[in-house]
Every structure is written in structure tokens, then in C-alpha cells.
């Protein structure tokens, strides 16, 4: 029989759960409920009162081409951030896994970027690529690349993707490295004896065995790109030029706090919640099936 700790006091278990529950209620359920309620209101222009308008905020949003464009921007942004941060992290992890001397130093260096705050990372990248004073922009100009993230939407997007991906590489790297080190060496040796070269071993043995890690990181990275990149966008481009880097989470902020359209902003955050929920469900449903545990 399983041995369990039992409490005589009936109140104690609830008491122990209270802090966690309070945190969840105060910082998640309450704001979520607020957003839901707000999304059904239309405040008057002076912010003195609000009218209950049912779903007209949502109706308006889906007719708004800027909003629909923001969906596409978010999809492009998340796709490239996830792709770049995961593939570089995997590459670095595979390389670090083969390093014998100075392993600790490599790992430490690769993990550092994670300790940098998003806003700081954004400012740093902004400086490096600032067309008139940036170090790297200088060399790009020398190399004949016409670089202008302040006016060119694609350039701006490339820049925020790079900064956001760079920031996340460390995190992915750690997990990939742990995943690689959990693969028994004898499997790799068996494959080598069976005639598989490096790349073939990676493709047929290592990568499939890493798939639980990869799947987990995929979920984490998409959520990261959706939500946690706000600071990077805010410091680097303010969503511009035009709307070219206005991802959904940035638009929530821009419309709500800058544009003072609280109803629309609340409706957007509700939609965002639903989207992320759906994405996660889809990932678990369809991708997890192809994962070999």
C-alpha cells in the first residue's frame, strides 16, 4: 500500500494551497474576467462611462484590415523566431555536446543571453543595427547592403526576429543539450558501426530521440514569441514602421494604452487568449502523436 502523509487538521490543506490560489486568482482569473467584461463595453470618448455593446467590439475588429494584418505579422514573426531560435540552439547544442575541453566555458557563454532583460536586449540590438551609428550597420553598408530598418518594414521585421530569437537561444540550448546528453552513447556507436555517417546518425537516431524536447520547446517558443517579445518590439520599433512589426500583443497595448480604445484592446486580449489556447491544444493533439517517447 502506498504510504501517505495524512493531516488531522481539515483546514490545513486549504491553508497551504491558499497562497498559490490567491496568486492565480489575483493575477490571472481576475484580469481575465475583467478583460472579458471590458471587451463587451464601449467607453465614451471622455472615459467617464461605458455602454454595454455586446459583441460589437469583436465585430469591429474582424472588419478591421489593420487587425487582420497584425495576425499575419504575428504568424510570420512567431514562425521565424521559433525556427531561428530552435535551429541555432540545436546547432550549438550538438556542437557543445562534442566539445571535450573547456565545456563549462562554452556552456556559460551560451547561457548568458538568457539573463538579459528583453528591453535591454532590444536596445542593444537597436544600437548595433542603427543605420547611422550602429557598428554592424556600418559594416553592412560597407558590404553594399542597403540597410534601413527605420523605413523598411522587412528590415525592421528581420531585426526584431533576430533580437527575439537571440534572446531565446540560451533557453533552448540548455534543453537541447540536456536532451542530447540523455541519449545513450552506445546507440550512437551502434549506428556508427552499422555504417551511418554523422549526418545520417543525426537524422535517423539523434533527432527522433530528441523529439520530446523539441516538441516541448516548440510550445514554449511559440508562446514566447506571442507574448514575451513585447519588450523587444517596444524598445526597437514601437510596432513600426507603419504596422510592419505590430504583433497582436503589441497591438493590445498600442490600441488600449496609446489609442485609449479600451474596449477593442480588451476584445483583442480575449482573442489572443483563445488563439494561444487553441495553438496549444492543436500542438498536443496532432504533433505529440508523432513524438517518440
Amino acid at each position, binding site marked *: 500500500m502506498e504510504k501517505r502523509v495524512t493531516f488531522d487538521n481539515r483546514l490545513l490543506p486549504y491553508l497551504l494551497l491558499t497562497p498559490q490560489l490567491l496568486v492565480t486568482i489575483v493575477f490571472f482569473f481576475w484580469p481575465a474576467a475583467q478583460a472579458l467584461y471590458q471587451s463587451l463595453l464601449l467607453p465614451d470618448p471622455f472615459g467617464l462611462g461605458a455602454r454595454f455593446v455586446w459583441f460589437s467590439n469583436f465585430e469591429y475588429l474582424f472588419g478591421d484590415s489593420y487587425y487582420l494584418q497584425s495576425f499575419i505579422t504575428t504568424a510570420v514573426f512567431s514562425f521565424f523566431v521559433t525556427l531561428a531560435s530552435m535551429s541555432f540552439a540545436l546547432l550549438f547544442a550538438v556542437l557543445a555536446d562534442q566539445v571535450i575541453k573547456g565545456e563549462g566555458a562554452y556552456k556559460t557563454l551560451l547561457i548568458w543571453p538568457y539573463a538579459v532583460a528583453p528591453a535591454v536586449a532590444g536596445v542593444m540590438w537597436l544600437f548595433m543595427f542603427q543605420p547611422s551609428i550602429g557598428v554592424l550597420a556600418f559594416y553592412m553598408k560597407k558590404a553594399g547592403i542597403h540597410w534601413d530598418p527605420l523605413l523598411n518594414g522587412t528590415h525592421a521585421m528581420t531585426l526584431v526576429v533576430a533580437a527575439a530569437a537571440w534572446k531565446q537561444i540560451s533557453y533552448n540550448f540548455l534543453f537541447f543539450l540536456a536532451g542530447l546528453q540523455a541519449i*545513450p552513447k*552506445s*546507440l550512437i*556507436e*551502434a*549506428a*556508427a*558501426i*552499422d*555504417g*551511418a*555517417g554523422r549526418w*545520417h546518425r543525426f537524422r*535517423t*537516431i539523434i533527432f*527522433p*530521440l530528441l523529439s520530446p524536447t523539441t516538441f516541448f520547446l516548440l510550445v514554449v517558443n511559440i508562446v514566447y514569441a506571442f507574448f514575451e517579445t513585447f519588450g523587444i518590439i517596444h524598445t526597437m520599433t514601437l510596432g513600426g514602421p507603419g504596422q510592419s512589426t505590430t504583433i497582436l500583443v503589441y497591438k493590445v497595448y498600442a490600441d488600449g494604452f496609446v489609442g485609449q480604445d479600451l474596449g477593442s484592446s480588451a476584445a483583442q486580449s480575449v482573442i489572443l487568449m483563445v488563439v494561444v489556447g487553441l495553438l496549444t491544444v492543436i500542438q498536443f493533439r496532432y504533433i505529440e502523436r508523432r513524438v*517518440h517517447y
Partner: protein
Amino acid sequence: MATISLRDVRKNYGNTEVIHGVSLDVADGEFIVIVGPSGCGKSTLLRMVAGLERITGGTIEIGGRVVNELEPRERDIAMVFQNYALYPHMSVFDNMAYGLKIAGKSKAEIRERVDKAATMLQLEPYLARKPRALSGGQRQRVAMGRALVRDPSAFLFDEPLSNLDAKLRVQMRLEIKQMQQSVGTTSLYVTHDQVEAMTLADRLVVMNAGVAEQIDTPMEVYRKPATTFVAGFIGSPAMNMLRGAANGTGFALDGGGRIAVRADELAGHDRPLLLGVRPEHLVLAGDRDPEFELSVIAVETLGADTLAHGRLAGANGTGDAFVARLPGSARVSAGDRLPLVIEPGTAHVFDAESGQRL
């Protein structure tokens, strides 16, 4: 199929040498077992042949070709690992077909070869399963099948049976032997189990601390162990070793006392010696003159045999522990003094300092 030859093979890890120059010639189709205690360098030696460890010194040839600088896949060998190293995300079929696919064999040929190996190893019902859904013995067979289908010039086994229970180990031991005989592929087999070593080997390599102490057929190793280490390692219970010196018509024990050994082997040696006597080569004197007496301390009854543990009578208490293996019918109990003789021609004499056979 191929010959394998090792010439003064050495291995260093940093500044420590763990293999101190092993030389060995393996004939085509021969089954060589490398046996020795844990940490003596058996796996290291095998992995150097496989190409999984760099060779620090000496040369290794497979099929007349020096392979020192070749990748494992260029050596045309197959290896069975102690933990089987099956690919967990592939079915049994795919595990066995993996090497064939890489070699670019046609679908039909892969199918045929895998089916043949699966039949031989009774694996047909499990071809679609993942390794996780197999028992230890079945996994072991898949690992063997994976080596078998590739039809390599040599098989390398690293303690393939040590994760199985005792009964299965005996069964698989036989199967490995039969498989090897039917395909006739040159094999190197590493184990620390002397019964496995004796039963499987055409020839044995007995290793100790990075040195091949003796390379010979199991029977020769048993009959004429080259060193005290080999003498103690092969045979169960281990050979009795008596320290002393030849003295006229007998053997004076360092621990005190003297035994009247008739063994001719002692003649002509006047330095400190070790006299080795296998427990099974002792018989009750009966109506002959006893060479020495054993005062029995404990008795183990095994059914077919009875093991009498004790010390040589006459020794002044410090005498070496001594075991005699007597027929199961022998009536012995603790406290007895058994009059014993050594079967003629079965005593072993070693130099007490170098441990070499004389």
C-alpha cells in the same frame, strides 16, 4: 569472414596506460573469448578493434588490412553491446534493417535477410514491435539479429549476456555458439564469466590489468595455466596455492609443516615456489599413503560434489585456506582430518616471485 591480428596494441588515457601491448592472431572463423576481471581492459581492447576508441600504439588488422585509422563503418564489423543499444524509436524490423538500408540494399533483399535472421533467432512474431515491448532475452536476440543480417567479416560481443538471468544466460550461450558455428564468422567475445569463456571459446585470451596473460584453448588454459593469475581465475573453486620450497622428497610449506608430494614437477627447483593444486584433483588417499591431511573446517554439499574447506593439518595455524572437491558420496564433516593425495601429473608449479609457470 576474415582474420584479425593485433600487434603490440596499446592504449593510453592521458598519462595512464591501460592496455600494455597485446598481440593476438585470430584465424578466419575462430571464436576468441577475452576474459578477465572487471577493469582489466577487455572492453577497451574490443572497442579499439571496433574503431570506437583510438589506438595509441601498435596495429590492428582485419582481413589483412590495417584499420588503425579507419572509421567503424569502414571496418566491416558488427558489434553486440551489453545494454543491446537497440534504437528505441524503431521497430524490431527497422532495427535489423538499419545497416542494410544504409548499405543501399534493395527492399526485397533487406526483407529476405531480416526474415532469415528472424527465423534463425525466433523473432518473427516480434518484427513489428518496438524494443520497449520485448523481454530482455528477446532484446538480446534482436541485437544479435542486427549483427547477423549484415554478414560482416567479424562479430564483436561485449558482455552480451550479463544482463540476463542465469537460466536464460545458459540458453543464449548455446544459441550464440550455434549461430556462430553455422555462419562461421570470426568472433571476439568479451566476458568476465569463466563458464561462458570456457564453453564458447575456440581460444581464450585471459587478461589481467591490461596484459594478455595467456592465449590458448580453454583446455590448455585449464591444464597449463601460464601464471598464478590465470590459475586462480580459471576453474571453480579456484586453484589452491601453497607457498613454500621444494625440499628433498617433499614440499616445505612457508606456513609450517611439510607435505610429501610425489609430483615430479617439483624436481630441480630450489627457489621459493607456489604449488598449485585444483580442488578437483585431490582424492581421498584410501589405502595409499596420504601426501597430506586436510583438517576440515566447513563442508558444502552440492549434490554431485562435496566441497571440503579447511587448512592443511600440520601447518601451524597460519596455513593457507584449502579446498578439496570430493565426490558427492564422500562422508565428510567439519572437524575431520582427511588424508589426501594429488592425482599424478596434475600439480602446477609457479615461481613465487614472478608468478610464472615453471
